[in-house]
């Protein structure tokens, strides 16, 4: 029974380069992808946008066969496919450019491009043919590289071009790029976008992951927004405004009630004046940032990730030099102090990436709670650690902070994300520091632990600490902060009172609309 109604649907399906239906992926109790549907038309640039941890990379790894979904199905070019591994995906015309490049430094560009599928003549590798083919592809798509050069001598931007060439040589028609601009300079990013457009012009399909609004607006045809492992929407880019996109990314509904508080406003603890700093690519990451934090107040920093918040935290903790301007902690210039001296001067730091800077995951809870005070009595004397004291102290903190663990000897890596964060908080909040720098305290933490962490932050406020709270979650800032500063592109766009914070206004500033323009509008 071949009906007429059947063929148009078939035709429509064939137009889809990629169609994911109901993809769910769990890691233990954590749901990374929750019933996600995604349809990518052939010949479009499809951006997938969301905060860190929204599930973007997990979804793409499932599509490319690096992870297997717990539920859901995948159609490639209209055909139901079980992507058991990358080989299957590559055969179906998919190619993926990962965030971390896998190139061999001592080999030439052409050798790297053809590695694993060398062109051979009489059993020997035909370098001339490989070089010619690489040159041809690089010309065709505007990916400027010299095929004969050694990869070890090249910049990151060029390495990315080589990774793209690798994918092209393997015959990919649909190219997935995972945060391709994270390592690029603005100039290189523009060149990359031109290349992506030339792919589409040849009828190829591009899927790219990003958390940068600007570039998504600039280059994509369609946007899919993910948040907390769920799909928020798929919309044509032309129909979207930047602040709509921001709101979809960070979420509108406020799930936390504002915490009750007594008014308190003590003396200035942290004073930042006209601070500038550069990121790892030597590009300006902080531009003329000035603010103060007083004791007994929580100052929130809002903004889409990657707008200078990380660099601000690093400068304030002494991990990154400022290029200009001054930051004073209780009147002392931070630039003159080492990280340890800054801590002694009164800083406690809850780092944004707790697994990298917050804890040593292989060490025990007790050892992690010791860090930073191992050279002081009563934890050590004459250079010898006093494990009895350390253990007792850890046991007490485990109880006080309600850390779900067997005991102080437990390895941190066996704890859940929320409990690991509590280990960091327990260590940092018991240092009698006057200034608390708290970066993304509840990222990847379950709801119960979130509540407990927020309670603890409010207790610290009541104890008269000065707190700088950096978060990409607006509802968290609305619940905790007395004032919210909004960062965009390294600048502070404006300040909003935490009480009755106007999310529309914050959203506009997060998207780069300056505060004065807003102020001009009737409130």
């Amino acid at each position: 029974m071949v009906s007429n109604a059947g063929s148009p649907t078939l035709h429509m399906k064939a137009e889809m380069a990629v169609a994911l239906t109901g993809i769910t992926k769990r890691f233990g109790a954590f749901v990374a992808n929750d019933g996600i549907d995604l349809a990518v038309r052939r010949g479009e640039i499809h951006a997938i946008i969301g905060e860190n941890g929204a599930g973007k990379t997990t979804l793409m790894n499932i599509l490319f066969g690096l992870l297997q979904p717990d539920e859901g199905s995948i159609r490639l070019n209209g055909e139901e496919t079980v992507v058991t591994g990358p080989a299957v995906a590559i055969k179906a015309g998919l190619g993926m450019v990962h965030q971390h490049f896998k190139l061999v430094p001592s080999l030439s560009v052409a050798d790297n491009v053809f590695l694993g599928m060398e062109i051979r003549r009489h059993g020997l590798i035909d370098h001339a043919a490989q070089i010619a083919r690489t040159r041809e592809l690089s010309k065709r798509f505007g990916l400027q590289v010299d095929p004969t050069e050694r990869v070890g001598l090249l910049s990151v931007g060029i390495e990315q071009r080589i990774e793209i060439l690798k994918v092209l040589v393997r015959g990919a028609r649909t190219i997935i790029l995972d945060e391709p601009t994270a390592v690029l300079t603005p100039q290189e990013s523009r060149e990359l976008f031109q290349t992506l457009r030339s792919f589409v012009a040849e009828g190829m399909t591009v899927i790219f992951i990003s958390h940068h609004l600007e570039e998504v607006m600039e280059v994509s045809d369609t946007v899919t927004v993910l948040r907390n492992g769920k799909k928020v929407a798929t919309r044509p880019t032309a129909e979207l405004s930047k602040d709509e996109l921001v709101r979809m990314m960070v979420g509108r509904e406020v799930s936390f009630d504002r915490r009750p508080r007594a008014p308190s406003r003590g003396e200035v603890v942290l004073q930042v004046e006209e601070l500038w700093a550069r990121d790892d690519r030597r590009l300006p990451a902080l531009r003329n940032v000035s603010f103060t934090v007083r004791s007994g107040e929580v100052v929130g920093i809002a903004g889409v990730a990657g707008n200078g918040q990380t660099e601000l935290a690093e400068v304030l903790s002494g991990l990154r030099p400022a290029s200009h301007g001054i930051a004073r902690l209780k009147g002392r210039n931070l630039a003159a102090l080492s990280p340890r001296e800054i801590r002694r001067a009164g800083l406690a730091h809850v780092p944004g990436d707790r697994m990298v800077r917050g804890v040593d995951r292989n060490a025990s809870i007790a050892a992690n709670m010791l860090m930073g005070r191992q050279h002081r009595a009563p934890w050590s004397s004459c250079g010898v650690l006093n494990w009895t004291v350390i253990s007792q102290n850890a046991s007490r903190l485990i109880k006080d902070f309600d850390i779900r663990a067997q005991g102080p000897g437990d390895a941190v890596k066996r704890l859940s994300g929320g409990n690991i964060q509590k280990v960091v908080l327990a260590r940092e909040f018991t240092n009698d520091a006057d200034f608390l720098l708290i970066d993304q305290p509840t990222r990847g933490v379950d709801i119960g632990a979130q509540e407990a962490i927020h309670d603890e932050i409010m207790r610290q406020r009541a104890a008269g600490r000065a707190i700088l709270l950096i978060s990409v979650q607006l509802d968290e800032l609305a619940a905790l902060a007395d004032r919210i500063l909004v960062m965009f592109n390294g600048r502070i766009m404006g300040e909003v009172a935490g009480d009755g914070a106007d999310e529309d206004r914050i959203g506009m500033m997060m998207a780069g609309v300056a505060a004065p323009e807003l102020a001009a509008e009737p409130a």
Partner: protein
Amino acid sequence: MEILDKLVNVALIAATLRTTAPILLVALGGSFTTKAGIFNIGLEGQMLAGAFFAVIGSIWTGSALLGVACGVAAALAFALVFAVLVVSFRANEVVVGLALNILAGGMTISLMKAIFGTRGSIVGHGIVGLPKVQLPGARELLGSWAPLISGFTPIVYVAFIAVPLLVLFYNRTRLGLYIRVVGEKPEAAEALGISITRVRYIASLLCGLLAGLAGAHLSLGYITMFTENMSSGRGFMAVAILIFSNGDPLKVLAGCLLFGFADAFSLRLQTFGYPSYLVLTVPYVVALTALFALSYRARPKIIAETLASMQRLLSTDKNTGPDGKHPS
């Protein structure tokens, strides 16, 4: 000038090529493992086993060629054990290499005692040495220079022909390329579906093959006998040369020629009546001095790497410490 003429002449150069051959072969073998990312300190033992079993094979079969085959087979067995322990079971390569070296030394001594009832050396017993290859036409063409290319045992020719072959192997064959990739960037190999384990096994066995040939050359080449600890540190010299050459065949050749020349020169000095123990140190002193001079420029990098590795060590100690394990 007369003394210099006596010292440096065609015979000395020919002797240099002869003495270079075994260390060149074993170093080229080590080039496979070096390129594949394995630090193979077991070259000495593989070479010694090769030398011993080449003699045994030669006595049993009465054929030099089968003797060489026996030596190679013994070295391959050592290489296989090395690969199983290091590649499959991820044992520490220095520990395994040293253990196999000690095993080779002890095993050859006790087998000598068991089979021949002697200690020290095996001479006679019908050992058949390798024939010398007289290239036809060499004498007519080169006159008194002929000994430079003619009259060596086959293994010498193999050693020197192996150098350009290895250059070709690393640059133009898929296996050679994969060995380099596995050594330099294992993640890249993995991502491309190249089996790191398989490539490292192949590299280890190729190493055993050449180390066995080198050993056979020692005992069946110019002197047909086996003595205790016959490899006398050549395997370790090869390791040193490999570290400084990073396994590149041409640089390996240069390093080995230097050592071979010093070796031949010291033999020549002995005939002048200098104390033999002092003279025997010459090749090692020369080679080490040259290697030190070469590496002097690369010094900051080496120091930086050492510091980095020490920091890694310290940080792992810190990790295990609080768990109750004692950092060693």
